[in-house]
């Protein structure tokens, strides 16, 4: 029995399942909700299967059709991709449950196929082993995401969807150019093969530069975050959650893969630059979040800040730093999804998300507020939470490497985060009148947000086990007890 489970090619299942589910939803819109939920559950189980497989047998390489690298399409799963898959599965399941209560019927008909396609693209991206596949999945992902943003309808949403589309295409183009350059130079796009062949040359620099710029644009690193707040804030709540938690992480994942495996000895100036931009993002995002008057905008800017943290690991470049950064990415995904869901609940209940008038809503939705607060704890990096563990590792890495200035940035970022999170929570306790008309918030929407936020907190307690999983296949070297 166990042997059977381990023998199943979970990597393929993970890609095929969502795509099939999406097709089914498209074909049978009347039962799309239940279909979607079932698919989500199935994917969740499949991720479980894959992690078992990886634990039992180590990192997996799977050649589709049995064609092997350089010609065929390879799929590769190690601890890093597993982490991303688990993240996608957790957030995806949450978003699915949440959406089943959120969307009206006609919206749902569009939402489910798109969302499952997006999930499929994500899974494929996290499992791809060559740069061109990565490009294709990235493009797919972008298109699905743009369509989802547009789902909200209305002028603002369409404008930001348009802008998002353009940015997405632009980023992909940059990336593609880099890929072409690499292929031109080395004749292969398989990551493992490239890793062996690549040696410093002007062409490689150019490729690194181009691909990085493209991916940074899509990851919305400061100052290329300009498209993100509008897009994330104007989308429907579950879509915002998806975008902030997962979609931006996809391009980051590619960047990380390149950085870790293809160009491990890139010069330090560039990594310092990335770190600087990350620091700027942390501060700028935090300050801008503080200045927002609308809740969803605040959360979106918080994403900008949190993405900045991820780039602080590049100048440090130790195993500890990578581990911490990935853990941050993970817990941020959960926490940010919970936050956007909470914001969606508030918006639905009170009909607005103006922070100054939140007191009218906040007291009637204790669960939502609890979810927001718990998520906020992780975002602030206060113990005990996944955010804290991550921050601890990053701090430790920066102190260990003697680059203490990054530690200062981390601390400052935490303080800013505390400031903007508590700006919202502070209103939960003030007395205010009931709003005249209150929308109905289904219990499952409140509970999903709470559960996701709770998982983000829980991450603070299970980090040793999580690090063990992440270390499968040693994607970023050993050490740091990870």
């Amino acid at each position, binding site marked *: 029995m166990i042997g059977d489970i381990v023998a199943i090619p979970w990597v393929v299942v993970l890609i095929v399942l969502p795509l099939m589910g999406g097709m089914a939803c498209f074909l049978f819109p009347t039962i799309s909700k239940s279909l979607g939920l079932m698919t989500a559950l199935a994917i969740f189980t499949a991720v479980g299967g894959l992690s078992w497989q990886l634990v039992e047998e180590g990192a997996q390489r799977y050649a589709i059709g049995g064609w092997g690298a350089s010609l065929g399409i390879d799929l590769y799963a190690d601890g890093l991709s597993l982490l991303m898959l688990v993240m996608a599965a957790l957030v995806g399941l949450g978003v699915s449950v949440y959406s089943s209560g959120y969307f009206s019927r006609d919206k749902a008909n569009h939402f489910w196929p798109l969302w499952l396609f997006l999930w499929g693209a994500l899974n494929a991206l996290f499992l791809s082993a060559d740069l061109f596949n990565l490009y294709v999945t990235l493009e797919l992902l972008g298109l699905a995401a743009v369509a989802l943003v547009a789902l909200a309808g209305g002028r603002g949403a369409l404008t930001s969807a348009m802008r998002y589309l353009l940015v997405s295409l632009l980023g992909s183009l940059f990336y593609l150019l880099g890929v072409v350059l690499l292929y031109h130079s080395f004749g292969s796009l398989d990551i493992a093969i490239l890793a062996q062949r690549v040696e410093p040359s002007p062409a490689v620099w150019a490729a690194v530069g181009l691909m990085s710029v493209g991916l940074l644009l899509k990851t919305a690193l400061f100052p290329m975050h300009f498209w993100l707040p509008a897009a994330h804030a104007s989308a429907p709540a579950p879509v915002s959650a998806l975008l902030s938690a997962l979609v931006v992480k996809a391009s980051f994942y590619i960047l990380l893969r390149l950085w870790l495996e293809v160009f491990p000895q890139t010069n330090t100036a560039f990594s310092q630059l990335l770190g600087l931009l990350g620091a700027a993002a942390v501060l700028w995002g935090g300050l801008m979040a503080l200045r927002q008057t609308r809740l969803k905008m605040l959360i979106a800017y918080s994403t900008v800040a949190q993405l900045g943290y991820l780039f602080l690991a590049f100048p440090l470049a130790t195993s500890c730093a990578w*581990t911490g950064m990935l853990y941050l990415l993970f817990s941020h995904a959960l926490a940010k999804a919970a936050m956007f869901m909470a914001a969606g609940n508030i918006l639905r209940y009170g009909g607005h998300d103006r922070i100054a008038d939140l007191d009218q809503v906040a007291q009637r939705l*204790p669960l939502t507020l*609890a979810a927001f607060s718990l998520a906020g*704890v992780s975002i*602030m990096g*206060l*113990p*005990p939470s996944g955010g*804290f*563990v991550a*921050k*601890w*590792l990053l*701090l*430790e890495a920066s*102190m*260990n490497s003697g680059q203490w200035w990054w*530690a200062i940035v981390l*601390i400052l970022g*935490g*303080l800013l985060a*505390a400031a903007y999170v*508590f700006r919202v*929570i*502070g209103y939960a*306790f*003030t*007395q205010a009148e009931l709003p005249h008309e209150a929308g109905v918030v289904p219990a499952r929407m409140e509970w999903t947000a709470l559960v996701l936020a709770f998982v983000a907190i829980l991450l*603070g*307690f299970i*980090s*040793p086990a999580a*690090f063990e999983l992440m270390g499968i296949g040693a994607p970023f070297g050993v050490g*740091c*007890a*990870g």
Partner: protein
Amino acid sequence: MSWDTALPLLIVVSSLIPGLIIFFLAEKQVAARITLNMLGVLVKLALAGVMLWGVFHGHHYEVRLPLLPGLDLVLRADRLSMLFVTLSTGLWFVTTVYAIGYLEDSPHRSRFFGFFSLCVTATVGLALAGNLLTFLLFYELLTLVTYPLIVHRGTEAARLAGRNYLIYTVGGGALLLLATVWLYTLTGTLEFTARGFLSGLDAVHHPALVVIFVLLIAGLGVKAALIPFHGWLPQAMVAPAPVSALLHAVAVVKAGAFGIVRVIYDVYGVEFAASLGVTLPLAILASVTIIYGSLRALFQDDLKRRLAFSTISQVSYIVLGVAVAGPMATIGGLVHLVHQGVQKITLFFCAGNLAETLGIHKISEMNGVGRRMPWTMAAFTVGAFGMIGAPPLAGFISKWYLGLGALDADQSWVLIILVGSSLLNAAYLLPILYTAWFKAPPASWPAERFFGRYETAWALLAPPVVTALLTLVLGLLAFAPFSPLEWARLITSREFTP
């Protein structure tokens, strides 16, 4: 999991679980809430008793859960932690009774009692923390769960006070985090060890250790309300009286002071800290805080504000005691951790009673209140004399050992601080007593309520009377076994004997 490892966990969980359940109780389920609350309290008291007995007999309670690579969440019961655990558990008991009486018929009680329980969970966790990381974890948790208690009233003033509290404490927490990480990268361990774990470190790192010490003290000093980080405390007075009591006597302020004790003893080690030359500045800072807090208290008319400034002053006794760095002074500081808690909680209960029964908030309104509420004011009198340090009350014992310790460590200047502070204590507390007992009462009180047989509700009256008695007993029977004084001596013997 054996009993020895389960006990520290159980003692933390015994208030966590009731707290979490209480959140989900409806506002009207009063009986269920009270039952749960008291159940948690009693279980915790019983467990603390068992643990105290065990630790006294040399039993070793410890539990480790992996939290970070190379770092565990450690809950360990040693003598110092038991001092704080017993204090917080015992005072939590009386405060819960008081809070039940105080918040009768007010809104949001489920939320309040939920966070109330969490607050004690954090405090006990902090007391049992076996390394700096665990300490940090509960320290930050404490910040988070006390915030809703401070803003509980929901007024604009409460919101502002809460915000200020956060600005201070989150900032302090950040400093603490930075210092902790730095320490970890230097040493690779954060385990609290008797006499510290830093003395073996290369002399090259000593300047860094001084900086870390400053960061740690600043981070902890925020909660301990050391100057210049004391600003949040008087503002936090907008909170309901049980919260003030909890804040001042049990949880927040004490957490800071306790942390400083831990840092000096179990991280740096007294002797090493003294050799780094950091204890004297700390003692001076504590002295300045003592005098300054008392001076400010002198000019407050609002009763709770006066008591708040008094706390600022009194808590620094603890810091002063450990910073003077001699065995006697340490006993004084440690024992004051308990004594100040019992006395200050009495005073705050009484202030709450006055506000709740008669609507009195200012000292100038207290004329002759002793005739209307003799029991409350009698308890207040005992607490106040304890604060001044009159024998045979608990405060005298603390002051006695602090003074002896100062002489012992050849730091006679501390005596001058003690004298000045005693004078000021008397100057700001005795007028209250005078006003309450000997001035003629007004024709009517601002907002009087009647409670049948006693001067106020029994749940409001019993706690201060009990703690006042405790003040007396702690002083009178200071040499009895299991008294805080004996316990402090035990702790100190570990730190100082060769």
